[in-house]
């Protein structure tokens, strides 16, 4: 099997537009949460979220004009705009915008989303009702379909290899990276642009997750402290938005062109809960099996894991995952550090797994575990170090990144330093 490495990173997050900007703010313990600015959410049970900071592009703000022309942008939902921005950053970071036809044939795209063009669908449904079918835009469907990030990216850069998309709710980003790595391992492509994007902070999105009783509702006056994984006073997740995209590459291909290599994708595990549509099994068995499968594929013992980027959404499920990780690591649980970066950026749904994989890769690069902020009173006494309220500088050679989604769909990625 061919080895797969990461050679490019791109990100749009509630903390900032850009990987390094986001990472430095994450390590500083900043929160991306606030009262929803984009629409009046005062009538909803939850009036706060982690929105991407819009602006002129300076100081980490996201300027849509930097990533798609006004003409093109008008035709797509924001989840595609975020995905395009992250993909553009990633391919430039990797130095991979080939002009050669053979290189383009060997480069594919696999970027997913959990929900896709939710606000476009809602707006168009209202338009249809009010003005009739002749007012429905010809760009409504191609601007809302989940696989259209992959389509748009391939068109922009001429990538003619596998063109695919994952839809597995909050596991989307991790599944996309894992599946894309396998396409390279099997020789379907030499380079894959992979990740996830989401833009579901809209009236119907908040109302829908409120109806599921999934969102935090009680900190309208103090949104920055609402996302508090593992804390006894947590009351649901805070919705985030944005995108994470990586460039994956066959190790020999990356070496031959002298690419900068961040990390290696060592293992990838998948499982299903077969339990409930929105809740994980009480014993965390699904997540446990995904982690075991990923480590087995990597050929790495559980006690070699230094850092775990948890799914940890700030819901009751946090302690279920914590229990599963402690079971996995056994006596060595005290040696590892686990944190939930959702405490800072909220839950990016289909983008979460990709953004968190990038944080895990940067943890290896900088030898530091990012903090779990707002963790004042742990709901249970953890055996693991949860990097409560401060980054934890430590040796990080092997990382595990977990993602679990509605429907009981689980994915774990194992990544590590590259060695010859």
């Amino acid at each position: 099997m061919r080895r797969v490495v990461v050679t490019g990173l791109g990100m749009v997050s509630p903390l900032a537009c850009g990987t390094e900007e986001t990472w430095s703010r994450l390590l500083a313990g900043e929160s991306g949460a606030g009262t929803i600015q984009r629409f009046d959410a005062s009538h909803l049970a939850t009036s706060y979220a982690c929105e991407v900071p819009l602006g002129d592009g300076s100081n980490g703000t996201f300027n849509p004009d930097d990533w798609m022309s006004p003409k093109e942008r008008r035709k797509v939902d924001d989840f595609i705009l975020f995905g395009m921005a992250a993909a553009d950053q990633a391919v430039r970071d990797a130095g991979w915008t080939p002009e050669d036809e053979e290189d383009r044939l060997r480069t594919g795209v696999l970027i997913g989303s959990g929900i896709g063009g939710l606000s476009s669908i809602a707006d168009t449904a209202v338009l249809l009702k009010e003005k009739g079918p002749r007012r429905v835009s010809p760009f409504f469907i191609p601007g809302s379909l989940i696989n259209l990030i992959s389509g748009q990216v391939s068109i922009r850069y001429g990538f003619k290899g596998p063109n695919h998309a994952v839809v597995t709710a909050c596991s989307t980003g991790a599944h996309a990276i894992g599946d894309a790595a396998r396409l390279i391992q099997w020789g379907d492509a030499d380079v894959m642009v992979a990740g996830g994007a989401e833009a579901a902070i809209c009236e119907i999105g908040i109302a829908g997750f409120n109806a599921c009783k999934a969102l935090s509702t009680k900190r309208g006056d103090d949104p920055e402290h609402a996302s508090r994984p593992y804390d006894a006073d947590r009351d649901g997740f805070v919705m985030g938005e944005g995108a994470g995209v990586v460039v994956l590459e066959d190790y020999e291909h990356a070496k031959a062109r002298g690419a900068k290599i961040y990390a290696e994708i060592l293992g990838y595990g998948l499982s299903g809960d077969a339990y409930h549509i929105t809740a994980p099994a009480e014993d965390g068995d699904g997540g446990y099996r995904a982690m075991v499968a990923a480590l087995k594929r990597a050929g790495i013992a559980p006690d070699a894991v230094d850092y775990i980027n948890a799914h940890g959404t700030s819901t009751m499920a946090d302690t279920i995952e914590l229990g599963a990780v402690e079971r996995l690591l056994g006596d060595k649980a005290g040696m590892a550090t686990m944190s939930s970066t959702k405490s800072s950026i909220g839950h990016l749904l289909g983008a979460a797994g990709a953004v968190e994989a990038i944080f895990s890769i940067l943890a290896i690069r900088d030898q530091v575990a990012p903090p779990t902020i707002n963790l004042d009173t742990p709901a249970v006494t953890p055996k693991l170090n949860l990097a409560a309220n401060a980054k934890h500088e430590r040796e990080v050679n092997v990382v595990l990144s977990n993602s679990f989604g509605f429907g009981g769909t689980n994915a774990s990625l194992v990544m590590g330093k590259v060695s010859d």
Partner: protein
Amino acid sequence: MSDIADRVKKIVVEHLSVEEDKVTENASFIDDLGADSLDTVELVMAFEEEFGIEIPDDAAETIQTFGDAVKFITEAS
């Protein structure tokens, strides 16, 4: 230039992101102004909305240039 022509030009400039001076009498939406087939569908929809008229599909196919659009709308209004 007539009021109708001004309003049509404004729509074309907005939807196709082109300079106003490129939108001339004989400018073809597809060949000269960078539209694709979906753009032309959306343009026709915008004309219908702006002028409160209905442009049947077979008529829409004959609207290839800025001049065609102004002529059709002037006659239909």
